[in-house]
């Protein structure tokens, strides 16, 4: 993997995870390990390949995006983390604990206290009010009514739903329902937040709103968020790390800038070719080694679009790139323009 080595123990560690759907997954596992494709497995053995040889380290307190087209195995993968789905083989470790070795009680406690989940179609309890829905995880934890109510109210307020406590989910718009879903997940104080296409069912404008809310909350809460999406723009906007799934396999897992500049294969190259690179490629990605530069300083996190006027105005076309008040490199107009061109698409590389 192209992951830079992290010193911290990853929060979630997935090793050689395989999932095959069908009546006798163990029997056909060997074929899959030997490289049988998803299509062959379906044709010859009537089993569906869900996941193949997934290896992924998810760092603590980061927002990890898992992206892939519909049917690529995203939902299957995220449901392995809290064992809503049992793997065919492989290992899952959370905080150094072997999730697959957990008995029912330990697993329940994991779900109650350590992870919570937000669903694509919200998964709210239709017969309970907003207030009761947000209290749900707390009630299950066994927290007293009074405290659960107080904590729920706080989170309802945080997601901007004050005044709707006594409404039923069916009375709210999709965006508001998902705020309830988010508040319900946050209320349990779980360290890990699983979000399965949480914003995919929402209108584009509402979706951007929800992304903003999530980013604001994350700035303060620093949860380990595993966020599933099929939308590349969404992935690039919020992801600190992105893993790309295709047919149940991870084909690249890296940070967004790296994926944009060094796509692992033709599939990803094609995937990213329509991205508005000026809005996502940052100075730290295009900068060269530090040196004299005549332009105004730009921040390492600035996008090309933001920095372009300064680069353009620089007499020598070079600006110093700053991080925390120190120069860490120089960025040039030429490099910025080069970075705007997507890597050559080579669609012949994959079928």
């Amino acid at each position: 993997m192209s992951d830079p080595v992290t010193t911290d123990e990853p929060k979630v560690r997935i090793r050689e995870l395989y999932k095959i759907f069908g009546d006798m997954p163990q029997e056909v596992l060997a074929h899959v390990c030997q490289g049988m494709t998803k299509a062959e497995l379906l044709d010859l053995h009537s089993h569906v390949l869900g996941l193949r040889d997934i290896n992924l380290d998810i760092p603590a307190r980061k927002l990890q995006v898992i992206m892939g087209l519909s049917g690529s195995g995203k939902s299957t993968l995220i449901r392995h983390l809290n064992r809503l789905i049992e793997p065919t083989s492989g290992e899952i470790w959370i905080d150094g604990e072997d999730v697959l070795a957990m008995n029912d009680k330990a697993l329940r406690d994991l779900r109650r206290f350590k992870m919570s989940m937000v669903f694509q179609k919200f998964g709210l309890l239709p017969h309970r009010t907003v207030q009761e829905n947000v209290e749900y995880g707390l009630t299950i934890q066994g927290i007293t009514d009074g405290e659960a109510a107080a904590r729920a109210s706080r989170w309802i307020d945080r997601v901007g739903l004050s005044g709707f406590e006594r409404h039923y989910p069916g009375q709210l718009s999709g965006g508001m329902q998902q705020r309830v879903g988010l508040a319900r997940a946050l209320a349990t104080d779980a360290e890990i937040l699983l979000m399965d296409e949480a914003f995919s069912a929402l209108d584009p404008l509402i979706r951007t709103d929800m992304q903003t809310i999530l980013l604001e909350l994350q700035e303060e809460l620093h949860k380990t968020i595993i966020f599933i999406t099929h939308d590349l723009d969404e992935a690039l906007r919020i992801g600190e790390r992105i893993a790309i799934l295709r047919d149940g396999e991870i084909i690249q897992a890296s940070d967004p800038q790296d994926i944009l500049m060094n796509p692992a294969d033709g599939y990803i190259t094609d995937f990213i070719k329509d991205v508005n690179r000026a809005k996502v490629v940052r100075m730290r990605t295009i900068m060269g080694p530090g040196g004299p530069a005549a332009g105004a300083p730009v921040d390492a996190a600035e996008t090309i679009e933001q920095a372009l006027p300064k680069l353009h105005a620089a007499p020598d076309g070079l600006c110093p790139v700053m991080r925390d008040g120190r120069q860490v490199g120089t960025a040039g107009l030429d490099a910025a323009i080069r970075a705007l061109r997507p890597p050559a698409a080579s669609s012949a590389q994959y079928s």
Partner: protein
Amino acid sequence: MLDFLTEFPSLGRRDLSALRQGIDESFRTFSRAYGEQLEAFFNPLLKFLVWFQDLLTDAPWPLVILVIALLTWLGARSWKITTGTVLAFLAIGILDMWEDTMATLAMISVATVLCIAIGIPLGILMARWDRAQSVITPILDVMQTIPSFVYLIPVVMLLGIGKVPGLLAVCIYALPPIVRLTNLGIRLVDREVMEAAEAFGASYRQKLFGVQIPLALPNIFAGVNQTIMMALSMVVIASMIGVQGLGVPVLRAISNQYLALGLMNGLAIVALAIIFDRVSQTYGKRLQSYRETGRE
């Protein structure tokens, strides 16, 4: 050879009668051996039924009507239904069917409570284990389709004639819908909602009582409603094995060709059915008022 094709090669008359006698005999032995124990087992039920029926017949009729009106109001929250109910019971009293109606009412109420107490847990069991479902479903099919006269025979052989065998016959007939609809209602609960409960670490009990049963309630209520209707439709047959109530005069009317008597008592049964139906349906609807979106 041709004979073989035109005449079905049935058992001989002697073999057959031996077979039937064998079955009858062993059932009689069983009934002699366990009949009393069974009666003792059902005795509390009998006592309760008698007590409840006496309560209804002995209480002053205005009080009974008042209580019924109150229950109707609590269930349906509708003046129309409540007024209709009161008028129906007044008519029943004026036409001198009060006692029989009270007896039927007691019988139906007890049968319904019994069916709920047995049926809902059975339905829950079926929803939890596919195995249970595949065993219980054919039994329910038989219970619903076998002509009631056929199972009256063993019931009477075991328990004789009276209220308890009548109650059992009614329950056998009226139990299936509540079991089926409980099972169906639980299975129809939205998968994603169940998954959410699971993901938050809900235990089986928390899922059952917090999510599945509340969301299945509309279906469970439809089951209760059907159970009541089917119990009412058994009133005449039950009166053949000694159950008091509106069925007795109907039976008398059939054998003596009393048109008016049959019609009046029959209509009283219909009135009870309509009241039960409207009340339980509106109550069921109110249970799911949260489904109204309140938004366009």
